[in-house]
């Protein structure tokens, strides 16, 4: 109920359009009911008048019939347009609100890196909410308006018939659907689960085709798929059975209500308590009145789906509100940074704001300094998906008291086996994860640490400033569904055409772009051209070049590329590195050789520091780590 009200509140801005839709639908339904009832009355009256050879004003009813027929058709057309308009308005409202929520939650709260599942769930949830108005709210409101009108009219003729009709309307419109929806939602969970299992089994069948063949297990996997499908079919049968039964029962209730009304009315006609023509009219009226509840069953089936979808999306919003409140109550605590858009406190802000531009400019040639940085994964339920990855002891430090310095315009590599804390470090620098302990700062001149104006603790920068200073090429770099120019504009909204072309050339993409018929306006992504990993990496580098950040962080930029692509990406990186201070996670010897310094991490601690050659000479383990063929 709570979620229902919150959903209604979400609809509020478009109440006008939605109510107009309700009005037109009511008009359509009532016109149809009227059409049938008046036709019945007209036929009966004409027959009666004909038999009695009496005169009758047949022009008015005939006119009304034609009029209602036109009203019905026209309002139906209008209703469809208006309700679709309202649906689109709601769609936009919901998507904007979901996106706003997601964009303000930090990545740790979303556990986003781990769970592709989140997106699939979200997609289903948003889809379910998009149709909330059309499938749930509209039918309910229409029934709420129409049923009293219909019943009120019947009461005018005969209260008993009205009572029978009301009872039947409630059974068909509410009773049966609620029972059905309860029954369906019991199996719906199992059905989703079973469908997911089937998808898993089929997917295993496809991805593991070679291994299954090798282990002679193809047949047993086929049998497994069949068994799950069998289960799934049984659940589907239950569902369709329930739907069929409900349709059958509805038909019986509707027709019996009509039959009951006739039985009630016949004695009255015989005793001439009501006019005989009313019998024909009322029996048709009762029959037609069920159109007012025709779409209710579907609404009741969709309601729990929409509500649980709403529940999940509102839960995300609540997480956001909660963390905002926590931020307000504990300023100074590290939670502060968990909200990336939270504006910094006024005093800190004024430090940069008066000549923010200058301050940022002067940071351009600054180095990076980490002092005693530690990070520990919390056992927060929201990051519970991380739990598996952690060793049994939960006191594990992903980063343990790390300190190092990168001088201005120095190119530094970060080397370490998986689990050594490299990615955690990138996440901390990105600001998408909250800092816990230690201090990360930009230093203007390493030799002059005493001068505080040359130091800028990145924690005190606003997120916008931080993003401007630190460019991160993440491992899961996302190329958006859009043109090359669109993608470049995400990085630099004001970039001109020439700047973009120049950046592409610098990133070794120039040749490729010029072979494309639409050049920078070529569509990429799922709806456009597929691009190779090497091209996508270089496009990311072009994005970085357009931003020209003070610190460039590259997370395994050449990983997963074939030799040819690797060479091109490497050229692009080396070009990009000339301009900025660079921190690059890599095991690529060619890149390592180009670095001024290598920092070697192991188990969250700095194991060694020096040039690639120095480390190679000094540590056998380092040699093993970096030698890949």
């Amino acid at each position, binding site marked *: 109920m709570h979620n229902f009200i919150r959903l209604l509140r979400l609809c509020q801005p478009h109440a006008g359009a939605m109510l107009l839709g309700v009005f037109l639908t009511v008009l359509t339904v009532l016109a149809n009911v009227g059409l*049938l009832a008046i036709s019945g009355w007209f036929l009966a009256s*004409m027959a009666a008048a004909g038999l009695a050879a009496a005169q009758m004003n047949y022009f008015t009813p005939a006119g009304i019939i034609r009029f209602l027929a036109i009203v019905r058709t026209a309002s139906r057309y209008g209703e469809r347009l208006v309700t679709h308009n309202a649906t689109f308005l709601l769609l936009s409202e919901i998507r904007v609100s979901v996106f706003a929520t997601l964009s303000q939650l930090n990545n740790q709260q979303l556990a986003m890196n781990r769970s*592709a599942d989140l997106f699939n769930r979200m997609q289903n949830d948003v889809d379910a909410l998009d149709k909330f108005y059309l499938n749930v709210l509209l039918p309910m409101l229409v029934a709420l308006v129409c049923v009293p009108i219909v019943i009120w009219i019947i009461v005018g003729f005969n209260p008993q018939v009205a009572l029978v009709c009301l009872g039947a309307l409630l059974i068909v419109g509410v009773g049966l659907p609620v029972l059905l929806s309860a029954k369906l939602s019991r199996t719906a969970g199992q059905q989703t689960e079973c469908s997911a299992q089937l998808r898993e089994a089929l997917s295993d069948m496809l991805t593991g085709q070679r291994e299954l063949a090798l282990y002679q297990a193809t047949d047993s996997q086929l049998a497994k798929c069949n068994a799950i499908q069998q289960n799934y079919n049984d659940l589907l049968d239950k569902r369709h059975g329930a739907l069929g039964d409900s349709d059958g029962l509805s038909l019986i209730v509707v027709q019996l209500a009509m039959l009951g009304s006739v039985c009630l009315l016949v004695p009255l006609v015989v005793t001439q308590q009501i006019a005989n023509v009313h019998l024909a009219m009322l029996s048709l009226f009762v029959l037609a009145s069920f159109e007012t509840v025709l779409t209710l069953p579907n609404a009741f089936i969709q309601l729990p789906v929409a509500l649980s979808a709403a529940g999940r999306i509102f839960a995300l919003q609540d997480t956001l509100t909660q963390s905002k409140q926590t931020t307000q109550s504990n300023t100074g605590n590290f939670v502060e940074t968990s909200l990336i858009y939270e504006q910094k406190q006024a005093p800190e802000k004024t430090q940069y704001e008066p000549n923010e531009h200058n301050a940022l400019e002067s940071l351009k040639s600054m180095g990076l300094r980490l002092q005693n940085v530690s990070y520990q994964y919390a056992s927060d339920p929201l990051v519970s998906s991380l739990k598996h990855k952690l060793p049994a002891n939960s006191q594990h430090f992903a980063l343990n008291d790390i300190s190092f310095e990168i001088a201005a315009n120095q190119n530094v590599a970060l080397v370490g086996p998986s689990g050594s804390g490299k990615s955690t470090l990138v996440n901390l620098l990105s600001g998408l994860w909250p800092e816990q302990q230690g201090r990360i700062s930009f230093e203007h001149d390493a030799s002059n640490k005493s001068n505080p104006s040359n130091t800028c603790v990145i924690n005190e920068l606003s997120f916008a400033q931080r993003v401007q200073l630190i460019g991160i090429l993440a491992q899961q770099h996302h190329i*958006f569904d859009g043109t090359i120019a669109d993608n470049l504009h995400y990085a630099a*909204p004001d970039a001109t055409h020439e700047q973009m072309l120049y950046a592409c050339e610098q990133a070794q993409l120039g040749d490729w772009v010029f072979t494309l018929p639409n050049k920078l306006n070529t569509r990429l992504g799922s709806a456009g051209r597929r691009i190779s990993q090497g091209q996508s990496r270089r496009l990311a580098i072009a994005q970085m070049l357009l931003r020209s950040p003070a610190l460039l962080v590259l997370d395994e930029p050449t990983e997963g590329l074939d030799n040819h692509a690797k060479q091109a990406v490497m050229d692009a990186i080396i070009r990009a590195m000339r301009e900025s201070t660079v921190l690059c996670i890599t095991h690529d010897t060619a890149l390592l050789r180009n670095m001024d310094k290598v920092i070697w991490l192991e188990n969250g601690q700095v194991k060694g520091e020096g040039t690639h050659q120095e480390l190679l000479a000094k540590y056998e383990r380092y040699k093993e780590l970096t030698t890949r063929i």
Partner: protein
Amino acid sequence: MKKSCTRGCKKNVTTKARPDRAQQMLLRGFLKRESASAAGLLRFSIALGTVNALLMIASAYLLAQSIHLVMFEGADLSAVSHFLWTLGGLILVRGLLLALSQRLSARAARNIKSNIRANLLAKITQVGPNFTDQKGHGAMLNTLHDGVEALHDYYANYLPSVAYSALIPLAILVVIFPTDWQAGLIFLFTAPLIPFFMILVGHKAEKLNQERWQQLAMLGNYFFDRIRGLTQLKLFDATKRELKQIAKISDDFRHATLSVLKIAFLSSFALEFLATISVALVAVLIGFRLFFGTLDFATGFVVLLLAPEFYLPLRKLGNHYHARLEGISAAGEMLEILQTPGNESQVMAEPASSALDDTSNNGSITVSGLSFTYPDSNEGIHDITLALPATGMMAFVGASGAGKSTLFDCFLGFYPQVISCIDAGNGPFSAADIPKWQQEIAWIPQQPTLFYASIKENIMLGKPNATQAEVTIAAEKAGALAFIQSLPDGFDTLLGEQGEGLSGGQKQRIALARAFLKDAHILILDEPTAHLDSATERDVQRAINEHAKTHLVLVIAHRLSTLQQADSIFLLEAGRVVQQGNYQTLSQQTGSFKQLLNSDTQAGAHA
């Protein structure tokens, strides 16, 4: 093999062009053929639905007659009670028939779906993994799962409603004509007008409607693409801009779509208009004939009752039109899979001859003149000849694209057409020997598949009848025991999507345990590059070295240490073995191997 997106792209909405008329015919033919397995059930369901309609007509007569008698013949309740009782009975039977007919059509649809899915799976198994790679796992999975499910509405709703839209109006006409031919004529003339107008208006409107669906899908794609790339947007500080963009695009879409809908809805407008006006026209005409006494009320009332029912099936058919389009587009992908020529040779005729009897030879294997190129590229391997001993570690090295994976795939028997190049001592293999041959091999690809099952079941794939003790030993050998035991459910931990929740190294070690458990003569592995942490890496390396003393180990090498420990190294270049020997020999010789080595260690050498 090329890595392809397997699960992430589940929701990619296909915005394929609509099949043209000829293709539609073809696909409808296919869908019809596939329905053969449940044709009886489907026909029975339609028969029940039609009987239901006939009973509906009978009820209309009974009701009209009763009301007529009461209104104009002065009958009381008892005089019409036999009509009303019959009517009540008919109502109950109709409810029953409706429920039954719907149940049956749903059952028919699910039988057909299961059948199609089984056929697809059989075909996919038959044509081999390479086909799946070409098509893309994501797309295949969509066809197998959602695609097949999308056929439900086609079979359960669309096909019956096609039948009803012909049968029910016909039945009504047949009974109306003898009763009142004039009303019959109105029906007869207006009924074809509906499809006619539908085609006239609908042809364009349907196209527009179709475009609207595609646009809606594209809008959804846009939105979810931005959510997937949310981290990226945050890193560009572009979320606020994007928020405005999403609002703007949604609004633009709304405006654009509404102007399209104005036309698209015309088709249903025409349909509604004709149906409603026809009913109104029938009512008015009958009214006047009643007034002039040329018709009795019972007949007039029956016609009025049946008029809406006459148009109802046609209107319902319009509602199921979308199911038809979805069914046809899903069928397109299925037909493509089912029509792929299969590797008939892979169908096993008889159990293999004992190709690998240890008694007959010393266990050495020869590969001679093996060439394989991919159908649509020049890449592949050429004239490979190898003599492999019964035990020892053989390392294969070379740039990516040099043909290492292809060679391994051929060796593993995934390309039956070249299996005759391999000889394990009893003469060249034939395709029928492949299963037997594969039993002799344990294999770990670079990205091993972990199945949706418990860790134990995943390991036991290597030896289905293994004891817990054997599983534990294998896991220990693979360096996996410690982390498995640290999990709350230990060996019974259920693995989700591709081992979701496990790190790359952990997956690799489970696969290794699986391979150790199989304890086949030959172990083939693609050495993991960056997945393992330092301690485990050493343990695993040691276990593999130990294994190589008693087994043949073929490894695609990425590490210097592996090359140093290999008994023999094969260097591949452009699909050919260009150098062969042990590390000592090769690193002395001038040649590609030395170059390869130097490019990676020269820094160390100079230090």
